[in-house]
């Protein structure tokens, strides 16, 4: 996979002397740089795709630590926390929710005040020593796709490795793992990959690493002492899904040790009306808008429930036939779907505990 580089860098005035800005300038000596008073000056006017070509370096305003927005009322939730050290992603998956979520603010941003974010997290961990937190950095950004430029993992992994009541999840579709191989996670870091059927990876996940490259990267970090995770999210009911998904499962677990898999999640494609409109407005046509998606109670469209539950059950069958001890969960689904899929509706706390146990 080619390592992403921006067409131009925009640095917020007063942040140009930050460690991150200096590192970026050193690694991208030929990239045009603009110093701006207000980072919004860097916002491109020519659409979401163009926004991904510009790197904005700025301070993060507000709290870093957030509850995962998947914990919507009426959905079973895994009590996951997210920290956004970047916003937007160099990859251009056709189904990506950021096309809606960041529609008005699409530049690719990296935040300079990582230390403040970690101090905020440290305070939370100290306030609740009885609790183990699962924290991810892959909600508004790919956790590793910019790591060759930012070295963010070199700050995060040692931070978590030194703490006993938190687990970091680095979620990615990249194979940027070189930094990770030099660090010791001390069982406090899970590196996870979003994976899909080969045809979905090829047709819909533009710019991301190939499935083969993701598996090779997973194999390497597992060998380096990390636990790994996989997210079959979004599951897409394409022609041939009943062959495509088990083929991906077979490819993954032919090469990975299932005892060192922290968790595997499943999630059906979810789409707001605005996301659907954004996907349709992009120059590259995507088949994801033609699925049999219907509106749910939360206003998002999903594959209609009968077919969705069938997909979850089949996935469960295939995954359990590999190793029935791997912790599995489904994301953003109501209790009824959990019940029909797993035959039980665990409390949010139970889901969280099982996943913490998986990472231990």
């Amino acid at each position: 996979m080619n390592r992403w580089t921006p067409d131009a860098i925009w640095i917020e005035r007063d942040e140009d002397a930050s460690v991150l800005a200096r590192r970026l300038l050193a690694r991208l000596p030929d990239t045009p740089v603009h110093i701006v008073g207000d980072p919004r000056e860097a916002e491109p006017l020519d659409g979401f795709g163009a926004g991904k070509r510009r790197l904005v370096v700025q301070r993060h305003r507000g709290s870093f630590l957030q509850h995962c927005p998947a914990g919507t009322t009426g959905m079973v939730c895994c009590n996951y926390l997210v920290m956004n050290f970047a916003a937007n992603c160099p990859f251009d998956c056709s189904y990506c929710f950021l096309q809606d979520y960041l529609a008005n603010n699409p530049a690719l941003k990296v935040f300079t005040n990582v230390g403040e974010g970690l101090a905020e997290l440290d305070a939370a961990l100290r306030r609740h020593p009885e609790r183990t937190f699962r924290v991810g950095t892959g909600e508004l950004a790919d956790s590793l796709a910019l790591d060759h430029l930012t070295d963010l993992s070199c700050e995060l992994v040692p931070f978590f490795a030194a703490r006993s009541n938190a687990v970091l999840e680095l979620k990615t579709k990249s194979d940027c793992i070189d930094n990770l191989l030099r660090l010791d996670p001390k069982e406090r870091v899970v590196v996870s990959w979003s994976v899909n059927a080969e045809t979905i990876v090829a047709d819909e996940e533009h710019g991301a690493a190939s499935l083969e490259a993701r598996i090779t990267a997973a194999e390497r970090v597992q060998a380096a002492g990390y636990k790994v995770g996989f997210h079959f999210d979004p599951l897409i009911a394409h022609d041939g899904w009943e062959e495509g998904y088990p083929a991906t499962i077979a490819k993954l677990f032919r090469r990975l040790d299932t005892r060192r898999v922290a968790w595997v999640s499943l999630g059906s494609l979810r789409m707001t009306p605005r996301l659907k409109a954004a996907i349709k407005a992009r120059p590259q046509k995507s088949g994801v808008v033609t699925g049999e998606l219907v509106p749910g109670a939360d206003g998002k469209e999903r594959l209609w429930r009968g077919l969705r539950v069938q997909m979850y059950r089949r996935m469960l069958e295939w995954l359990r036939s590999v190793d029935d001890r791997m912790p599995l969960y489904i994301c953003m689904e109501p209790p009824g779907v959990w019940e029909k899929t797993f035959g039980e509706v665990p409390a949010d706390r139970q889901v969280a505990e099982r996943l913490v146990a998986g990472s231990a």
Partner: protein
Amino acid sequence: MTERSVDAALRAYAAERKYHPTTIDRWLRLAPADRAALLELAQELRLGENQLRDLWEWAEEIAQRDGLSLATVLGAEALAAARRRAVGRSDKLKLVKAALRRLRFPQLGAAEDRLAVLVRELGLPPSVRVTPPESLEGDSIRIEIVADSAASLHDSVARLLAASQSPGCAAIFELLAGAR
């Protein structure tokens, strides 16, 4: 009709119905045959802007999925049959929409048909109404009983109780649960 006359008719129709300029622009950017087919449908059913957009969106998604033109989708026999029905405009619109929905959601439509058959086979009286969840997005069915006397209520409940113990009733819930 020539392309120019289709465009003139389209503009006139859209102006009369006070369509938003962006909708008109988008319509005019369609291929000539698609533009004309959509106009014919709009005129025939006297579609307001939202009604047109709903049908257009489904038709466009079917066209993309099946590799067809919009005109071909709008000319499908299922839609043509609905349009031939000798009913009022409002009923015809419902029929066209239902036919298009069937094309847009074929697996969901088939499941809804299976469910309707299962409900029919319960043999419930007209006083008992069974409503499945919208787009089958849910586990629960709604049962309504209309009664005008204690005797008719007793009869409806007795028949409902008998139906609830039938294999068909179990099959309804299995279908909602995602069984094939």
